[in-house]
């Protein structure tokens, strides 16, 4: 059973539908009991980092999640949920993240060449820079759907696949059993579904 952590940020229906479509048992939950029994966790999220981090603390979801990750339970962060895995973010100030992966979340606009739009919205191709079980069914050059204004820097060897958008944007990151996707696998057609399927098999 995969627990999709509901902490009041964003629309979780499509993520849950995708897993159900793949035949993967899942539940959208804010119940710590359910989280403590799940064998995998997904941390979704759209919106601003600071708000989301605050909501994770307020609901106690951060502690519930971290204790499961310490016990070896695989976690997948998606979009803002991926960004929350890092040490800190500079979105509207400076906010500490969950500290599961080294690196920081920085504004795209400071690093892009002139004429590139922020947010990056749309389909971009993946280039592999490492290996990850989540890329098992993905081929280099496959496209995934992004919507974001901030990106991870300094993630080092945790970066497994990138997309070119004026800079190399880390698309998929992994540190041990902690995974993160900057793109939306649940909105990325068959390629995205294959990534969710691979997470189901981790």
């Amino acid at each position, binding site marked *: 059973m995969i627990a999709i952590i509901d902490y009041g940020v964003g629309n979780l229906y*499509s993520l849950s539908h995708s897993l159900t479509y793949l035949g993967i048992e899942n539940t959208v939950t804010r119940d710590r009991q359910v989280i403590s029994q799940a064998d995998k966790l997904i941390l979704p999220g759209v*919106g601003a980092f600071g708000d989301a981090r605050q909501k994770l603390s307020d609901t106690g979801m951060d502690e519930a999640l971290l204790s499961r990750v310490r016990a070896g339970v695989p976690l997948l962060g998606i979009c803002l949920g991926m960004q929350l895995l890092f040490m800190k973010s500079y979105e509207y100030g400076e906010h500490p993240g969950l500290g599961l992966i080294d690196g920081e979340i920085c504004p795209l606009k400071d690093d892009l060449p002139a004429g590139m739009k922020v*947010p990056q919205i749309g389909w971009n191709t993946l280039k592999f820079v490492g290996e990850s079980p989540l890329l098992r069914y993905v081929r280099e050059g*496959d496209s995934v759907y992004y919507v974001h204004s901030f990106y991870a820097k300094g993630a080092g060897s945790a970066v497994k696949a990138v*997309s070119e958008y004026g800079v190399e944007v880390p698309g998929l990151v992994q540190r041990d059993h902690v995974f993160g996707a900057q793109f939306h696998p649940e909105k990325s*057609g068959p390629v*995205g579904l294959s990534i969710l399927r691979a997470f189901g098999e981790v």
Partner: protein
Amino acid sequence: MIAKRIIPCLDVRNGRVVKGTNFEGIQDVADPVEMAKYYNDTGADELVFYDITASFEGRGIFTDILRRTAAQVFIPLTVGGGINDVSDFERVLSCGADKVSVNSGAIADPTLIDRAARRYGDQCVVLSMDVKRVDGSFRVFAKGGRVDTGIDALRWAHEGQERGAGELVVNSIDTDGVKQGFDLEMLSAMGKTVSIPIIASGGAGCMEHFKTLFESVPQVDAGLAASIFHRKEVPLPDLKQYLAGAGIPMRILR
């Protein structure tokens, strides 16, 4: 590299997609859920569902269709039509929409854009506008393109962006339905005015029109059309292959 997007638009009335009107004036219709699934499977980059129902029952049918579609479509889904308040955002988002398109509702109350963007994020709010030339300038028309609001379209696009719209759909009334190509002049003016993604609509009649659009107005990120895709006058998979072959970055399904 980021791809240019091709987006079919499904106009839904009384639970059916209006594919177009034939020469005898009879409306050709289809099942929206089936059609959405077809586009999902054949490489559409996003889908737009436009609710053109006016009745209360029609709205109920629409949200039911939306729910059934969202359960089996794994590409971004935008919903428009009859969005006049934040509660309308809630209604369609809870049925599985990813983005919500506002048009007349935002003209009537521009703060709708700010309120929705604050609540759901900029990426969720798509400002859609119908534009027509009047006395040498581009004007915004409301109520499905019937009413001249007197508002300058470039000014409105900029204001929409400042208020928090994450994308812009620009439909040219002058080129819509004529099938002689997109309104390149107006779209280029939009491209110089805003920095958010622009989705061009109105005027596509053949594959070359999309090529011309992306080549001559690089600020345009996506091309939207309806009946030419539905009636397969321009089959969507063929279009994407053709554009990729012409060197336009495209997402091609393998």
